[in-house]
């Protein structure tokens, strides 16, 4: 092997330094972006009294419990007979006084004494407060004591929206991309133009339409429109249909395949990746849909999660442990979905960006 010249060594050092700095920056940046997640989870596992501390408590902890005379008691530190002692809190009086029984040192063991609340320091160890999770579920909604109702509503909503979106958008996009009919192109331009229209303009009349149908306080206004396609999704899938070569279609036509057959048997399988991306985007959209339920749903039993979480916040704003547990539960499925389908996720974003 040839010995390294001074120049090569310099270049290697420079390259190493560059990489080190880049990694440093990337790690620091990643940390900044991930810290709120950590804070969320930690807060959901902390005791209430640790919520308001400076510097912040990062490790969930609870008072150590010991068995004293067959009963569970908290472990604490206090001063007795001029000495720091380890003792079990055997009684908490309404007046704030605590009764303690000494455990250590051994010469004082078994002695019982009283101390004011402020003179007693709890001994704590790492122990997450899991209770917040079932508690948060039980609070939601208070009427049923079962937060799963919300999860169920959200899942129903997502499923129906996805089915509707996939069916209608692909069918319509197929028509706009592969079939020729008079008025197709002007109509497509009109469709594109409506993408510009802010939802606020049609919000009130659409409410009146659903009111006339008697759909207020049902989930229907939230998913039924999906069966009519949306300009954006149609546009997205149309771009995909356009990229498929004509040969396949022509061959199918010669074989006597119907238009629906071409759509169903030939075209749909070819745009599967786009459909996957659309499925994920639609799922995210309806999982997160907030304004829809805010307008249309008034019974707690029919509310989806996103709105329920906001309600939960107004009701339990003073109990961050519960609130953060509820938030964690709301974002967990989305994060899991992301990890399972990362490829389609990224693809969906790139599609909507570049092709849009």
């Amino acid at each position: 092997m040839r010995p390294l010249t001074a120049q090569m060594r310099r270049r290697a050092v420079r390259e190493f330094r560059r990489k080190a700095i880049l990694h440093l920056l990337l790690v620091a940046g990643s940390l900044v972006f991930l810290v709120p997640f950590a804070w969320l989870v930690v807060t959901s596992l902390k005791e209430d009294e640790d919520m308001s501390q400076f510097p912040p408590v990062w490790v969930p902890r609870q008072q150590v419990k010991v068995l004293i005379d067959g009963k569970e008691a908290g472990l604490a530190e206090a001063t007795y007979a001029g000495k720091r002692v380890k003792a079990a809190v055997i009684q908490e009086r309404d007046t704030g006084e605590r009764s303690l029984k000494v455990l250590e040192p051994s010469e004082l063991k078994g002695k019982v004494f009283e101390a004011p609340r402020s003179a007693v320091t709890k001994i704590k160890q790492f122990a997450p407060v899991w209770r917040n999770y079932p508690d948060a579920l039980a609070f939601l909604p208070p009427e049923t004591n079962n937060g799963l109702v919300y999860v169920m509503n959200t899942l129903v909503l997502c499923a129906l929206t996805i089915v509707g979106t996939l069916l209608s958008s692909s069918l319509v996009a197929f028509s706009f991309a592969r079939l020729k009919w008079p008025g197709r192109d002007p109509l497509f331009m009109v469709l594109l133009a409506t993408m510009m229209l802010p939802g606020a303009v049609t919000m009130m009349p659409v409410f009146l339409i659903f009111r006339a149908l008697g759909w207020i306080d049902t989930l229907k206004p939230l998913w039924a429109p999906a069966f009519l396609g949306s300009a954006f999704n149609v546009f997205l899938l149309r771009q995909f249909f356009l990229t498929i070569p004509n040969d396949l279609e022509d061959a199918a036509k010669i074989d006597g395949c119907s238009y629906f057959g071409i759509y169903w048997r030939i075209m749909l399988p070819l745009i599967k990746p786009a459909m996957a991306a659309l499925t994920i985007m639609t799922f995210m959209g309806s999982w997160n849909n907030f304004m829809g339920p805010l307008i249309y749903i008034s019974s707690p039993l029919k509310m989806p999660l996103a709105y329920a979480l906001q309600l939960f916040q107004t009701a339990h704003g003073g109990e961050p442990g519960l609130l953060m547990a509820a938030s964690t539960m709301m974002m967990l499925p989305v994060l899991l979905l992301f990890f399972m389908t990362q490829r389609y996720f990224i693809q969906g974003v790139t599609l909507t960006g570049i092709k849009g």
Partner: protein
Amino acid sequence: MLVARYTRRIRLRAALAAVLIGLAGLAALGGCRRTAAPEPVNLVVWGLQYGAESKGLEARVKAFEARNKGIKVTVLSMGAGQMNPQKLMTAIVGRVPPDVIHQDRFTIGDWASRDTFGSLDDLIARDQKQPDGIRESDYYHACWAEAVYNGKVYAVPSGTDDRALYYNRTLLRDAGLDPDKPPRTWSELRDFAKKLTKEAPGGSFDRIGFIPNYGNSFLYLYSWQNGGEFMSPDGRKCTMNNPESVASLDYMVSVYDALGGVTRIDSYASGFQAQELDPFLTGKVAMKVDGNWVLESIGRYRPDLDFAVAPAPVPDDRLAQTEGGKPGRFAGQDPFLTWSGGFSYAIPRGAAHREEAWRFIKWMCSPEAALIDSAAQKQYCLSKSRPYIPTISANKRVNEAVMAAFAPTSDRYRKPLKLFMDMMPYAKFRPVTFVGQRLWDEHVRAFDQATHHKETKLTAQSAMDEATRVVQSELDRAHSRDRFPLLGSTAPIVVGSLLVLALLGAAFVGMRRVNGMGRVVRSEAWAGYLFAAPRILGFLALTAGPIVASMFLSFCDYDVLHAPRYVGFQNYIDLFTTDSYYLKTSLYNVGYLALIGIPLGMATGLAIAMLLNSKVGGMSVYRTCFYLPSIVPVVASAVLWAWVLNGDPNRGLLNAAWKATLTPWFGWTPPGWFGAAEWAKPGLIVQGLWGAGGGMILWLAGLQGIPQHLYEAADLDGAGPLVKFRHVTLPMLSPYVFFNLIMGTIGALQEFDRVYVLSGQGAGGSSVGPVDSLLVPVMYLFNNAFKYFKMGYASALAWVLFTIILALTLVQLKSAPRWVHYEAEKK
């Protein structure tokens, strides 16, 4: 022949497909349809909440069900005790109202005026002689009068409450004050507040003596104490800016200023917790004006707290009764007064079971039910070894019965409770008017603006003038409503049929052209129409139709419950004249968010993308880290960031980091974020930046699309990294910048979800963020459309918003050729 069969088959298949989709939709609809009506009457009651602490309420309702076998009661809290008016309004307008509503009494006038509640006069009169009848004479005047609008009774008062000063005797003693001599006048109160306040290093507090608007007092109480009234007796004039009320607002401001300013206090207060960590119970607040309900939580969480209750302090000359030796302006008046509020039962219009609802209301307001309630609640309290403290009823007979059987045994609670009950005859109540909610919202806004005078530059007088003007214009508008003509059915029918004709014409022309074509082409055309039918239908029903309707609405006054009136351009005029404050504020806020937020977001996304594009190992891991926050549901993200950006450094993560670094280094105090007017929008931007990783994917794709030879050429010219970025990267990315800019602008102008969550709108907040610092156009629109149901006004606003978005997009499109570089064009 063969071809004919062929086309028929195509049509058949296409028709089949359409039918299938239709069926799928119908099946889904059917699946969600409710099952047949249950046998017993299901009485739906809103505004009551069951929970661990409401054993009494539960017993009361159970006893009703036991006495009325055919009725099952469904109790819904609708937001945990806090009735969200938007929900109730939508339910009534949407014709799915509850049967009974337990509603805050001061809003009854408002609801009654809009015909959303039904009058109870016929039922009251019918049962007058019955033993369980509802009789006016049983009720405190302040309570009953609050449920009467235009001479008709719209609700039956249930519970009531009044307010007094709570103070922590230990803290008074520690500060060298006599715990037996609480403040009685405003100036004493301010002195005490200063003496009891302990500042903490870093601009925060260890304790605050007294916060004028903490607890439950509001400007209303101070104003009444000073002899002010918000409305003229006939209810046609808003008199909020009367000298007495302005002086009382000035007083509140002076207390805030004396303690270090509202921003600092709010940032301290944003860390207040509930229940056993309540700041009064933990000594973080030494005195507060609050309602009798606080006794319960003291008994529950701090049985050792050395506290006492006294009437709320009043203006000095009110107590003295004299001025310079002569009888003063308050001569002969009661020195102390209180404010009573509370709830009441009403029956919304269109309720399905009015008779059962009335039976329920009569039961809930009876002494018998109250005794059952108290017994159950007392048993529960004893099981938790805490004292039972009865609540106060609006019905005097109920109070007598309950106090005879369940009065607290210890003086500690009996004395304060007696003080609260004895104050009831001196209670004032908020004016019964259809602008009750508006009056409330505006008085909160005025308070907010006057205390934040450093930012708003407004005095108490000017803030109150503005609030008065807004309420007055609302009053005038309502009174002048009748002069506008009803919108007849002619105009909509003419326009509607013209549109239908145009549509039919287009369809006819299309059919002619299709029929003139060859068979194969024709069949393709038919299939095309059929396949596109869902979106065409959707376009007509959910886009085109609503656009026309929205145009119409914007020229109407329409609250859905009454026939629309044609008002011409009045909605637009109001928007730009009387209500210009809202338009200006919301546009300013959204402009701020867009001008700072969009470039910052783009820069962050691009910076991350460039780091990721630098070919180092582990890129997919880094990419996931940066991308993850952008997929977090908006509501969850907002809830999380409300906590991360908590103003109190002991609680908010970012402020803790700030306090540990920036404060010792530069002496900067941590900002109040969503609790401070000037920091709320930066807070929103910070929260938005967390999701900037979402844009990174696009930037990455763009960066990877830049041909390497351009950089190599630049290298040959001896260009440094900055020059390469400026002259190669940026121009090549300009289409992406352009795309982000347009989408970002359109998105920013329609900001809603996170603002709703972060500004606490769900809790019935009237100002959107401190001093409306988070008021955005769609938020204002939403409130008008679905809280006040001013559909016409909201539509006008929507069109203004649309015009702005359109104009901005056009400007961007027009400017694009000058700076957006498309590589393809050159080829």
